[in-house]
């Protein structure tokens, strides 16, 4: 059993709030991702869990036991760093054996564990090499082996793929996820890359400016973002957010389109806005479809080739630019007028004043 619980954990540096009081309960075997831009507090939170950073308030519990003031070595957690942190003067074998030797394990036990771990990560051929001579991917595999060999209660990973080439990141991502599926080990993973978070996480904790913005499964944060930040941050490109006016049961986007409320939204929106008439309508690039009879119109600003598909940047009235995903068959030179339609199931609404999402089913 390896559950991790954070109760009102907070971190202040003098007057600066690096992490505002945070509650999080991580289940045994769960892969939880702390996601956010630089400086949002995700790494500080991870370091507090590991004990590398002291806590200014709150409690941390491992398997129900409080470890808030335990030394990092007393928490049975393994930490994987972005820049590998391998000992360059030791061979790969010595690097991996290091944590076990520190615990005073017997030689044959160390050898047995070593073999196990090295087979899992497929690096037996690297045992004699020096870390400095290895490629980035191999170095990260060695770092993972060193963490794995301890059989800790949980793994903490701080942007382990950040230093790798884009190509390698893809394959290492799948490797780490496969490892997790095989080992069922509780993992807390920090990244700024929302693609990694979506691909790997059982649950994602989206953070910004020291606060948690939303905790949910990938599908929850993607399809039902709790606020504007999550809506923009998740997805590549993020959600389109256009200003609209509510009147007569429909949303008017300037004078380039109107759409009656999709079913289930009318009551919720009117109630949330409470007399105001400005609302933000959100839709993801794939929720829009270009077709001749669409209810919204605009002009092509530029197009981006993305390999399997194209992204159209369309300027609509009010000088806003929306991104629409399109196939590569049709070509859209700059300036082409286009009409597009929105999938009513995928449209979301936000209160511009609170920046929060308006929930569809009215409470």
């Amino acid at each position: 059993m390896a559950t991790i619980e954070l109760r009102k954990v907070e971190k202040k540096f003098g007057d600066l709030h690096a992490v505002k009081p945070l509650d999080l309960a991580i289940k045994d075997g769960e892969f939880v991702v702390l996601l956010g831009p630089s400086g949002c507090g995700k790494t500080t939170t991870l370091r507090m869990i590991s004990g590398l950073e002291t806590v200014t308030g709150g409690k941390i519990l491992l398997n129900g036991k409080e470890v808030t003031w335990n030394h990092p070595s007393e928490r049975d957690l393994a930490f994987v760093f972005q820049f590998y942190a391998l000992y360059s003067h030791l061979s790969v074998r010595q690097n991996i054996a290091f944590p076990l030797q520190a615990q005073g394990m017997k030689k044959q036990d160390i050898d047995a564990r070593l073999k196990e771990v090295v087979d899992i990560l497929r690096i037996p051929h690297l045992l004699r090499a020096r870390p400095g001579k290895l490629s980035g991917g191999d170095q990260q595999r060695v770092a993972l082996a060193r963490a794995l060999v301890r059989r800790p209660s949980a793994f903490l990973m701080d942007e382990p793929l950040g230093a790798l080439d884009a190509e390698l990141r893809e394959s290492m991502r799948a490797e780490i996820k496969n490892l997790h599926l095989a080992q069922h080990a509780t993992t807390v993973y920090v990244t700024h890359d929302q693609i990694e978070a979506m691909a790997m996480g059982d649950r994602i904790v989206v953070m910004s400016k020291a606060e948690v913005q939303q905790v949910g499964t990938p599908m929850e944060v993607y399809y039902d973002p709790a606020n504007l930040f999550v809506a923009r941050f998740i997805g590549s490109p993020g959600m389109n957010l256009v200003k609209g006016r509510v009147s007569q049961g429909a949303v008017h986007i300037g004078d380039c389109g109107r759409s009656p409320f999709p079913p289930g939204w009318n009551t919720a929106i009117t109630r949330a806005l409470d007399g105001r008439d400005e609302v933000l309508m959100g839709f993801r690039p794939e929720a829009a479809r270009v077709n001749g009879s669409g209810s919204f119109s605009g002009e092509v600003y530029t197009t981006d080739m993305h390999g399997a598909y194209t992204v159209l940047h369309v300027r609509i009235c009010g000088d806003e630019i929306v991104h629409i995903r399109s196939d590569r068959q049709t070509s859209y030179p700059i300036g082409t007028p286009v009409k597009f339609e929105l999938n009513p199931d995928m449209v979301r609404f936000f209160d511009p004043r609170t920046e929060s999402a308006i929930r569809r089913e009215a409470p």
Partner: protein
Amino acid sequence: MSRFELQHITKRFPTVTALDDVSFSFEHGEFFVLLGPTGAGKTTTLRVIAGLEKQDEGSILLDGHALDSYTPAERDVAFVFQQYSLYPTMTVYDNLAFPLRSPMRNTPEPEIRKKVDEAAEKLRITQLLNRKTAQLSGGEMQRVAIGRAIVRAPRLFLMDEPLSNLDAKLRESLRVELKHLQKTQGSTTLFVTHDQIEALTMADRIAVLNEGRIVQQGTPDDIYDKPGTTFVAQLVGTPKINLLKAGRQDGTIHVVDSGLTVPAPKLPLPESFLLGIRPEDIRPDPKGAFTANVNLIEPLGVETILHLRSGNNSLVGLVPGMAAQKVGEEIRFDIVREKLHFFGSDGARIVGDAR
């Protein structure tokens, strides 16, 4: 107007040949991208063009005129580094003004003020002008670095992976901004990166570099649709293309160690070769012709990556939206035949009669 040409550039270092007979050219106003993995020689190419390194063989020409004997200052190029481009002891304003204050240019102060303000506005950093560079965020620093290049209105912009050190989200927005800026300014730009998304979205044309050699040149569409080698095919496109060993028997192609078969196209195929299938061309279909087991699912929201196992082969598929499939499930799928790629065992694309 102006056309840059690199002719047979070779650069050797004591331990490695960084550039081996590299030739390519680009026109005024073009956004040309050098794409390749780390160590391919991209940075060396930029440094040779800028004059910070001297090539051992070959020549750099501008409109037919050789630049090789010119110092970096005389070549009128601007360099944006991956990092360490800003002088830490100066304010943002002084950083932007620095190139204009060089003794070579001798620009009067009022004109410097005007040019700096213009550049700051284009990059939306006017509010940062009086700050010290140490107080800036990563994205702001790179904007200032680009601003410093713009301020000189040089003939050519050289950018060495300027977005690599930024957060993913920041990279996205700065990418769009940079492309827009380049298009409106019409500035000739040579941009170097290892990230294929940057290359595909920003480039007018791409040159793929590997181990010091140019492997393929063309528009993003060319590179993606008709990769000349397995290297290029695997470099561009995410998730990576599936490359499977296959053999031909009469009119059918059999993938080794699996039940996948497709009718053979009209190409001179050798006995054994590599079949390339892009993940988006694998279509799950309950009535599909082939079966596979789902090993891993990566839900990205807009699409889902499926890691499949068919026979002894690992396949990666890409399906739009949320996938209905679950890990461990057996699924049926089809392959889009028109989009298959064929490569010889030497890695080169097999061409012949069009399909």
